[in-house]
């Protein structure tokens, strides 16, 4: 562990976070708003990477966990006016329960079947939101009366701090013995099981950790937006973006996923002048990365470092 604190990765991360923390001093509120969303998105992608990159499970439904966290927090605040922090906590807990419920049937199956089960969960949640429109605001979206703060700077710092802490925990977990068992069970479940590790228990744990951070981030995001809607936290397209972010940044790196998410959101903004072609260009770039640099940004950088 002491090696880690001396490692280049650690120093670079600290430096990047320190520089990022000073951004509010010299960039506009518009840029801060963009980065705030990008940081929450980064947590979505890191949580997804823990499950896919390490446990080897293709979760097509990251937005199921995100959406449950976001909507639970939003509805509690909207209906009962409970305090923001309690709502955020309960949102994260609801996501954990949802993750548990989803994981039980989903972990019985593998590969594409697992992917489909998680995809179906998203479609069900989407239907639920539309059908119970009085409670959830339906397709228009749920209005949330409270916000954490209206200061763009503080919102930015909260998001940055949240991403840094989540990143540290998720990265630490991925490098811990638990992470190694997960990785082993993702690559060869039979052999990992034969070595005496309880694969299902480890995967369930990964699922719950992933759910906790997804739900927490989703809940924080809706209190930043002041609204929760299918298009921002539940839609399959959002989930696709999370997956693309993680693959772009480099799967099995956790931290790369956050980079990928920030890149994706910032690139989307730069491409705004191209109008409807923006999504096309982002998908095209992502496809090129998948085809030619399957390790992603961080994966490519790390392998170069390892070689030299």
């Amino acid at each position: 562990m002491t090696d880690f604190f001396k490692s280049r990765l650690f120093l670079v991360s600290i430096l990047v976070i320190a520089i990022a923390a000073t951004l509010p001093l010299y960039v506009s509120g518009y840029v801060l708003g963009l980065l705030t969303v990008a940081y929450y998105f980064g947590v979505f992608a890191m949580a997804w990477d823990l499950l896919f990159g390490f446990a080897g499970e293709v979760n097509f439904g990251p937005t199921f966990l995100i959406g449950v966290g976001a909507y639970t927090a939003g509805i509690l605040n909207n209906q009962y006016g409970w305090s923001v922090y309690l709502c955020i906590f309960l949102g994260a807990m609801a996501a954990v329960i949802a993750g548990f419920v989803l994981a039980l049937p989903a972990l019985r199956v593998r590969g594409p079947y697992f992917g489909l089960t998680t995809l179906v969960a998203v479609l069900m949640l989407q239907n639920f939101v539309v059908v119970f429109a009085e409670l959830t605001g339906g397709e228009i979206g749920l209005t949330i009366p409270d916000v954490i703060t209206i200061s763009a700077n503080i919102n930015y710092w909260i998001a940055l701090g949240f991403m840094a802490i989540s990143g540290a925990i998720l990265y630490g977990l991925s490098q811990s013995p638990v992470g190694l068992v997960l990785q082993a069970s993702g690559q060869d479940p039979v052999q990992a099981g034969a070595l005496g590790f309880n694969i299902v228990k480890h995967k369930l744990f990964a699922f719950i950790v992933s759910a906790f951070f997804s739900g927490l981030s989703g809940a924080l995001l809706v209190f930043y937006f002041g609204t929760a809607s299918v298009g921002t936290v539940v839609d399959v397209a959002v989930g696709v973006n999370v997956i693309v972010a993680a693959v772009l940044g480099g799967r099995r790196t956790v931290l790369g996923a956050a980079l990928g998410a920030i890149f994706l959101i910032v690139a989307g903004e730069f491409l705004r002048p191209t109008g409807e072609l923006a999504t096309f260009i982002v998908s095209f770039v992502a496809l090129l990365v998948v085809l030619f640099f399957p390790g992603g940004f961080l994966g490519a950088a790390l392998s170069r470092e390892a070689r030299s």
Partner: protein
Amino acid sequence: MLALQILIDGFAVSALYALGATGFTLIFGVSGVLNLSHGAIMVLAAVAAWAAASMLHTDTYTGALIGVAFALIAAFATYFAVVQPIQKSKRIPNEEKEIFVLTGTLLWGIMIQELIAYFFTNNAKTVLPIVEGVVDIFGVRTPRNEIFTAIVCWLVIGLLWFLVNRTRTGKAVLAASMNPRGVTLLGLELNNIYLVVWAIYGVLAGIAGVLLGMFLGVSSYSVGPLTASAFSIVVLGGLGSVSGSLIAAFVVGYLETVTAYLISPAYRTIPALLLLVFVMYIRPQGLLGRR
């Protein structure tokens, strides 16, 4: 009366689902590829047929043929630009190829979808039907087009059955889905078989897309739901099992139609999703799937 209506409408919808899912499951059975750009290719076929008829003023038959041709080209493009490079890549570990194919075809599908939206807007498009008019079936007014859709779907599925079970090429395809290594040992080129399968897939997806465009209309928003419905039908039936997908297509098609008529169109997809979760739980390999 209502029962007959459900019976007729459900039959047409199910036949269309069956046709769409057959090609999808065939590719999985033979090459282990789940093509998530499926919905995009179907919509591309329908939009091409629509554009040919409304912009180039071709007649409806030519338009439909152009649509199918576009789907065929798109299927080959998917194979050569996305699937084959991933399968041959040395930098992607073998056990992760499946997820890379999923991600790659998903991105490819989004690209097609965005290009359609860019050139032809997001508006829904209805392809002019080949046959027009309405017939009365025991008091239920049914568009001739609906009957035409069901007949064409079954004809094509029948042709496919004939091709796979009665021709030499088809038998090679069937053998490849059972044991790819055995086929190569017999001296058949596996790559050629893949080409044949993707060609069949392109034609099936194209016909299904054009028929869908005539029957219900399509827009670039239909891409995701179409892929998801093909995916769930195929998993429900058992991945790689063509007869399983046919049964599953009818189960899903009728379930959706019954829900839409008896409860509310808003709940249309919910019972099918619940059934899917239930089947995955008690029988993860699907109705007719092999472990």
